[in-house]
């Protein structure tokens, strides 16, 4: 990322950082996000409970300090504080890992195909088309049904779905960018195509990519929770925000806390991610004021 930003003419990374730091909403979101991540990492160690401990005397009790269940318990007397944070670990990990996978593959693939054009583009997009027409979500469902629900499988499968989107969007943008005057000029000057892609195409894609990435993390988190709704999410005793929200949604009329806490964390995280994405976009795109 640094190299790319540094490569952007007259726009060193420091300036982008300064612009980002000046954006109050984005900074607040970043801090909040950092706090949530921190809570998910160390929170479970602070609580007196473990994820699967059953408190036989306190089943589905509302939040309370003296009971030691800060977020209440679920129908089986399991502590929701611990479960929410543990679920956050899984959701965040799935979201980030899958997004990274899809970004790296997608940008490389789309930029190369779009810039190279001609036969290379045709073949590369042919491959994307072929994969595209595979209803991937359905394959994810099949994989989950048939081969057990495994954390790794979830994020590989989701990442594999998303890079296609990325590749197409990047390629579409590249198609127009490469017809732009400055690219044509660089090509006329005999600059190596790879350098052109890296110096001119990719930086110009950043706006779209960052917005897209900011949308992808929450999207992945949602996809994971969608699998949870179908009964195909991560395997118990592991849990995720999606699974907890799904359970909570079924109890919202009589045990609202079991929806509110995980949903609050989920929504806040998604919100923050989006603000950070917007902030990054504004900071990275010098054309915008």
């Amino acid at each position, binding site marked *: 990322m640094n190299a790319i930003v540094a490569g952007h003419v007259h726009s060193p990374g420091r300036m982008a950082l300064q612009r980002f730091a000046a954006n109050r909403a984005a900074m607040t979101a970043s801090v909040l996000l950092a706090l949530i991540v921190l809570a998910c990492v160390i929170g479970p160690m602070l609580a007196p409970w473990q994820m*699967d*401990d*059953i408190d*036989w005397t306190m*089943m589905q009790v509302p939040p309370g300090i003296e009971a030691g269940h800060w977020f209440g318990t679920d*129908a*089986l*007397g399991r502590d929701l504080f611990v479960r929410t944070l543990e679920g956050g670990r899984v959701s965040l990990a799935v979201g980030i890992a899958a997004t990274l996978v899809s970004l790296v593959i997608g940008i490389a693939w789309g930029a190369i195909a779009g810039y190279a054009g001609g036969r290379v583009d045709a073949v590369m997009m042919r491959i994307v088309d072929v994969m595209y027409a595979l209803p991937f979500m359905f394959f994810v469902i099949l994989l989950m*049904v*048939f081969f*057990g629900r495994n954390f790794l499988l979830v994020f590989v499968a989701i990442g594999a779905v998303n890079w296609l989107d990325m590749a197409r969007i990047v390629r579409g943008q590249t198609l127009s960018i490469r017809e732009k005057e400055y690219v044509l000029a660089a090509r006329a000057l005999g600059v190596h195509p790879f350098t052109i892609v890296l110096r001119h195409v990719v930086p110009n894609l950043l706006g779209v990519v960052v917005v897209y990435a900011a949308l992808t993390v929450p999207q992945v988190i949602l996809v994971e929770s969608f699998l949870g709704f179908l*009964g195909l999410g991560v*395997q*118990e*005793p592991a849990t995720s925000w999606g699974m907890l929200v799904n359970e909570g949604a*079924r*109890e919202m*009329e*009589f*045990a609202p806390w079991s929806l509110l806490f995980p949903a609050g964390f989920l929504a806040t995280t998604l919100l923050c991610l989006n603000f950070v994405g917007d902030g990054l976009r504004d900071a990275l795109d010098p054309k915008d004021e």
Partner: protein
Amino acid sequence: MPQRISWLVLAFLAVFTGIACAEPQVLRRGNQLEPESLDPHRARGAEAANILRDLYEGLTRAAPDGSIVPGVAERWEVSEDGRRYLFYLRDDARWSNGDPVTAEDFVFGLRRSVAPDTASPYAKSLGVIVNATAVLAGERAPETLGVAALDQRTLEIRLAQPAPYLVAMLAHHSTYPVHRDSVERHGERFTRPGNHVSNGAYALADWQVNTLIRLERNPHYWDADAVRIDTVYYYPISDEEAEFNRFRAGELDVTQTIPVRRFEWLRANMPESLRVAPYLSTYFYGFNLHKPPFRDAPGLRRALELAVDKELIAEKVLGRGELPAYSLTPPGIAGYRSPEPDYATWPMEKRIAEARRLYAAAGYSGDKPLEVEIRYNTGDTHHHVALAIANMWKRHLGVKTRLVHEEWRVFLQNRRQAELTQVFRAGWVGDYNDPHTFLQLMHSASGINDYGYRNEEYDRLLDAAAQETDAKRRMQLMRQAEAVLLEDHAILPLYVYVSKHLVNPRLGGWQDNLLDHHASRDLYFKD
């Protein structure tokens, strides 16, 4: 002049219809899943059975309280040795197209049900009929099956061995007659509306896949005057929460189930609609008896059973009126009383003390704990039960338990192969009101004994019961057999399932029953 007459006629009609038939009664039932088939000999699952009970009538049928009453057969006679049944059919029984229902129709139906080409999932339970097993195996022609029409209205069924549960079994859809003409004319498409001819209180009027099935009253049904609901809708709604919401919004009169965690809320907020009753079924854990640590270790199995607080599971983990189970057979089976193991009346402390003693005697301790795997199919309830049991074993004995859950079909395969399993989830729903439907599971010759249970005494008692013609004596033999099974701790019974519905309080005629059969013909709206 003609105009005036038509006005008169109209006015007369208005008054007349207002008096004679008020609103047509329409019943809307939630039915969870799309039925796999409406062919009574191919169908499987409760969804299809619910609809088939409205469409068809067997020789016998279940009354609203679940007891078996005459259906198409007005009465029947049993021979001395209990192997020959004569059923006398009522002469006013009609198909929905007006054809009479004859003994031939039943012969045709039963032959079709056991014919190997039909591949009926229930064919095996008809194995008591003479030659049924050979027909099923393709060794004999379906015509050799021990059923015969002595005349239009007399049906003879010959059995290979006495089976007092035959009469109850004949209320099951695998023994229904089918309309020969339409089956032969339309082949596999005979279950479509327009082609479908049935002999029950209702006829199939519409079938929109995954949307609804509509039944209209069969005007030719012999007891049509007693039928008060005119139209029945079955909606496949797989999401419990969605079904519940549609009931609440007044779009359903009967639900097939209630949402998992709603029981308390419903009891407080909609008690007039909530119907929960014990169901002819048992939820239990099996031990893999082929392999250590459970092979030849009845003491260990007993320790594990004693350490489970079944009352706590039924009340806290499930909490929907489930009963703790101490036997394979659920309570309430007609003419049968399940044996009660000694510890059932012990207080929990005594059970735990005994469990600890047995656990230690089996060679386990805090330093050398038992490490065991509970395997179950994916599902909230199963997970919670397993979690609770693991928690109890850990607390009382120090057992280290690993929970493994698998998708249903994968689970079934592993359970059958008995290679990976140690402790595993099991359950059984009785097909008819008789202990035999449960106890045959554990017979060493049973095709579905995934437990590896083999006890000659048990087999001998069951076999003797199968030959016994005296009903009382037969029940005694089965009770002895079950006592042997429980003594061996071959399984760990956990609880008795409940049937749970939401029923429109305006709907009359609903009676809770063990079989969870609620035919629409017995229901009506009070006004």
